[in-house]
């Protein structure tokens, strides 16, 4: 009872003050509103740009994937026809297989190799570290197109091409690199490894440098061998980096375009080097089939989402990060 009374007393005691505040509320209320509204205002430019340049085209692409589209005034809704065509399109499966293989190889090479390099670069005993770091990083600063043209010449079918000269020293006959499925894939993976090795190495290096030295010292006291230290300290500690590199590798692999385009243009012989994007490009800008190109885009989106979902779930099952 006592407490209730005192509370009511307090309330009544406060009453005049509140009233006063209501009389002159302007500055305070505006301040509160401002604080509430300000964050939205700050993110508004991003939201608008995102809506206009990402969500709208995305939604529109899905709509267009159900249309036959040859210009503004020539749009016909064709239902699932584009999707039926997609299912029966042998090139679709070919490009899917190409990018899958490409992604597989790039992941297989571009995760362990940069990690090992990063470990070496992180050792105190490695000489000229900053020089080598720059050397490995340099390729990514060049334009893909220019590098691609150089590689295209290097992979020439002539015996004077760079790679053919090299294998010539081993007594192997000149190879027509860009004309058969396996060598074409090799050419694509080589340029990718050359280009991204340094970047992934830098990612891993930053991960390695954030591992506390004490962990290694403790392990040394316990008599751990370098391999055990690598396996039990380094690997688990760079896990978030590995996840990140894996995810961007999958995305980059499936959206491969530049390298394939400079090697072969939009159509490679027998589609040995065609990718999702070169095929979409060919359909849209080479043949004017914008509707079907959108269908391919939607298919690619779904496939990449599924793969990333699987990746996240599988890795999440083993450990909750």
């Amino acid at each position, binding site marked *: 009872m006592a407490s209730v009374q005192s509370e009511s007393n307090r309330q009544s005691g406060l009453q005049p003050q509140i009233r006063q505040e209501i009389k002159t509320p302007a500055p305070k209320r505006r301040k509160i509103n401002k604080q509430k509204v300000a964050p939205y205002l700050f993110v508004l*430019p991003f939201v*608008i*740009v995102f809506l206009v340049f990402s969500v709208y085209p995305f939604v529109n692409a899905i709509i267009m994937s159900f249309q*036959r*589209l*040859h*210009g*503004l*005034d*020539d749009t016909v809704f064709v239902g699932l*026809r584009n999707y*039926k*065509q997609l299912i*029966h399109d042998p090139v679709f499966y070919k490009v899917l297989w190409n990018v899958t293989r490409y992604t597989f190889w790039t992941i297989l090479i571009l995760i362990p190799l940069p990690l090992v390099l990063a470990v070496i670069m992180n050792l105190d005993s490695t000489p000229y570290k900053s020089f080598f770091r720059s050397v490995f990083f340099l390729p990514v600063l060049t334009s893909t197109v220019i590098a691609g043209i150089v590689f*295209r*010449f290097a992979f*020439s*079918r*002539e015996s004077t091409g760079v790679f053919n000269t090299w294998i010539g020293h081993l007594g192997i006959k000149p190879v*027509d690199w860009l*004309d058969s499925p396996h060598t074409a894939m090799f050419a694509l993976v080589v340029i990718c490894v050359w280009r991204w090795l340094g970047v992934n190495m830098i990612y891993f290096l930053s991960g390695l440098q954030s591992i506390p030295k004490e962990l290694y010292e403790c392990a040394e006291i316990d008599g751990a061998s370098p391999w055990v230290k690598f396996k039990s300290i380094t690997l688990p500690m760079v896990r978030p980096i590995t996840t990140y590199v894996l995810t961007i590798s999958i995305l980059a692999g499936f959206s491969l375009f530049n390298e394939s385009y400079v090697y*072969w*243009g939009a*159509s*490679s*012989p*027998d*589609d040995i080097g065609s990718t999702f994007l070169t095929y979409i490009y*060919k359909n*849209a*800008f*080479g*043949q*004017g*089939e*914008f509707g*079907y190109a959108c269908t391919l885009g939607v298919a690619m989106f779904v496939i990449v989402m599924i793969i990333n979902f699987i990746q996240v779930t599988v890795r999440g099952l083993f450990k909750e990060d």
Partner: protein
Amino acid sequence: MKNKHNPARKIFSFFLAFLLIASFSLAGCGNKSATNKTSDGKTKLVMWTFVQQHADYWKDAVKTWNKNHPKEKIDLKVNVLPFDQMNQKLQVALNSGNGAPDIADIEIGQFATYTKSSTVPFVDLTKTVQPYMANLVKSRVDNYTFKGKVYGLDYHVGTTVVYYNMDIMKKAGIDPSTIKTWEDYTKAGQTVKQKTGKYMTSVETAADFVLDAMISQQHSDVIKNGKSAAAQDKNIKALQMLHDWVYKYGIAKKAESGNQDNEEYFGAFNKGNYASVIMPEWYMSRMVTYMKNLSGKIDIEPLPVFNSGDNRSAGLGGTSTVVTNQATDKALAKKFVVESKASKEGAIKQWTILGFDPIRSDVWTAPEMKADNQYTKYFGKDIFDKISALKNEIGGMSFTSSAYPTVNDQLLTNTIPNVMKNKVSVKKALEDADKAANKKLTSK
């Protein structure tokens, strides 16, 4: 702290925010200015092209136009964009009905993608071209004619010829002018290979200029009634010949990088690795630029034929100039484009500025064609004497049929690479191409 409520500052920040939003939202509206006249009364026209030399041609053309038409002066702005980028931008602009230039260059292989729409996004030039028709090479106008209407004019004919490296031909003891049929050519090739160890020519695996030339000179085509018809006897004969040069007679090898129009190939030809190359007239510019060793050593001859009555040449490659349906002053743009391309004065410039064989064959005998320039220095003064002889034998194909991109893609992606790898018979490869292309065409 006081600053917070400083009204001047507030107004200033509002102003900044407004400016930011305005610049964002207006960035997309690159609309043409309300008036399309300059202060001195010239009509503003915008043109897009993907070749710097074409821009030079138009800058010169507008000077000529303004001199001849003082009452209808034009202020032409030419934008040169990379090939792919220009095409993408133009397709998007024409599809969306906004942002296209008044005049644009369209490569022959791209033209068909624009005529797929129910309404062609270009202005009909038929009536304006009519007075010049008699002198224009017909197959070149046909390329840009759709449903009876002319939509564009080319820069050149692309008369296809054989360029012989006379160093090698002399060594082999062969006079190229005696080569009349492809059979002669093959036999000569065997002699060349025997006596000099050099290849007679190259075959393309990623392009089809030579195949197209051979098909069109026999009056054949790869398209019939809007459908793929690659597996015709004459086409099989042509592709079989190319295949046999490599696998049966050993007189040709696959071209460096798969086609005859790239730097790697230029180097090889310049070194004297091939006795001849079959390419259109515009290949002269590649020779002059990239194959300096061969200056004065090249002989130009008509294409050999399969049967008598076949054409001894074909018009290959090309780029047309069109007036878009978004042009501000369509009538003026039409007159300007047609006059600059089809008038005598304009056609001669196609040679003097661009080094092309003009689309108007009556100027091929004009004295300007023999004037000194880098081409006459390289090939001699009788270039057009030789080309003029072919003027009624320039075959064409359905390059701009709406089915052509699909059929040609099939040929370049599957048929030719597989035939040239000796993986499949020519007949089967062409039949497969028809099947695949027609399946695609009917599903659209």
